[in-house]
């Protein structure tokens, strides 16, 4: 009886339209022009990059003032990805790092290259490598990856509260 039960593969796909909303449109427009624009919460004064939904998750109020952040930042923590998976767009092994951009109060994820994975460190200072300007779109993928700046590492105490 069990032999009669078959499994079939039925691939599904969905294309979405994403409304950026007024909260993050400045962020998208900034990227289109090679700038990293975050927004400051008028209540706690912390700077969000990306501003995501345009709302401060702590205070529940609309983020306000536009603030240019980066371009350099500090690696707070990271993962060396050695596992292959469906839909993967980057060759393994690669370093996915949480980067606290200068002037921002929350880390964002990006790729680290021009450096052996084993040499990446918490506290390492990094800077972006951009795609050719002709290829820019309203996307964080305009930055190909981050690379070490060669500056001394940041002290643990400087980024400990961001872990």
């Amino acid at each position: 009886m069990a032999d009669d039960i078959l499994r079939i593969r039925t691939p599904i796909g969905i294309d979405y339209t994403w409304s950026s909303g007024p909260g993050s449109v400045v962020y998208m427009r900034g990227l289109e022009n090679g700038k990293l624009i975050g927004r400051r919460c008028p209540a706690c004064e912390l700077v969000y990059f990306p501003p995501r939904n345009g709302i401060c998750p702590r205070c529940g109020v609309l983020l306000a003032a536009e603030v240019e952040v980066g371009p350099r930042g500090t690696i707070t923590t990271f993962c060396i990805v050695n596992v292959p998976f469906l839909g993967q767009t980057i060759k393994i092994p690669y370093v996915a790092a949480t980067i606290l951009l200068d002037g921002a109060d929350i880390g964002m994820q990006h790729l680290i290259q021009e450096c052996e994975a084993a040499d990446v460190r918490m506290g390492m200072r990094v800077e972006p490598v951009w795609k050719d300007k002709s290829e820019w779109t309203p996307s964080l993928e305009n930055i190909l990856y981050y690379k070490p700046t060669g500056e001394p590492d940041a002290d643990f105490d400087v980024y400990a509260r961001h872990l």
Partner: protein
Amino acid sequence: MALHRCAVVGVGQTHHTSCRGDVSIAGLVREAVDRALLDANMTLADIDAIVIGKAPDMLEGVMMPELWLTDSLAASGKPLFRVHTAGSVGGSTAIVAAQHVMSGLHKRVLTIAFEKQSDGNAMWALSVPLPFSMPVHAGAGGYFSPIVRSYIRRSGAPSHIGAMVAVKDRTNALKNPYAHLHEDHWTLEKAMESPMLWDPIRFVETCPSSDGAIALVLASEDVADKMPGKKAWVHSTAMRSEPTMFAGRNQVSPRAGEMCAEDVFRKAGITDPLKQIDAVEMYVPFSWFEPMWLENLGFAPKDQGWRFVEDGVTEMTGALPVNASGGVLSSNPIGASGMLRFGEAALQVMGKAGEHQIDGARTALGHAYGGGSQFFAMWVVGSEKN
């Protein structure tokens, strides 16, 4: 309003495995349900209400499975409630079911959680690119690995702690016939040689991908009192949540988890969890989360959870046995994993855990978390009435 008492009177689960190609989702779920009903000596006709939960529908690619599971659960004419709180869903589903009884609305409630990972691709489903971020994300391991690195840096834990937890849980699983992984060859030395998948997380320190389901039958005090056999009385339940990302968030020990633990212990009258809790079933999908949650739950002081692991405190023979069942590290039907923790905690205080029974367990904690460590669900169960 005073809450009514609620007891777990039936527990049923499937033998968790990588692929149950012989059954549909409905068949898998019904298998757990039939075992729970048999354990409670009830039939579906006795059930007043059903509460079902699973992790994101994307994991199997079947949207709203509760719609078509209605018939296989004989839910016609009864309330059916679907719960979803990501990986913690098994826990929160059991809590919603308990609330159906504790409110006084229902006397016999069936609750079920499941995942059939072989029907889909969880790694893909958890790596969907978002328009505002860089697509470097690599599944749950990719998300949690940097947090584990932060914990290691912050606490000064030596690198063998994760491997120790993995060896413990895989060894415990040998005593649990329902566990997915039955691997008797692990030693600390071998575990340390396991390849880094999501560095600093080794292969052995990750959970498997499982098909499985669990069902619990919950009953009101008057119903439970008339039943022979042992029950697990629900002493307290608690849930808390927080945003996945906010500036200054403590990702290693989220505030929501601390608040949830404080609440669930306070409501159960527990003032010294380390002394008063006899067994813990903790949601540990990556082994390093055991020391991290020991701290988050208040069992260990900050940055000291790893010492509990190193000193064998969480072994089956230790002062605070954690995951005698083998835990998520040995079976991970994602949506069911939280309810497995709750159900295994119940089995411990019922004295029905079989070979992985902790002698004399009277009070146990079931713990689940989900999303980016943003949803927490916990219950304390006891062999005696609260």
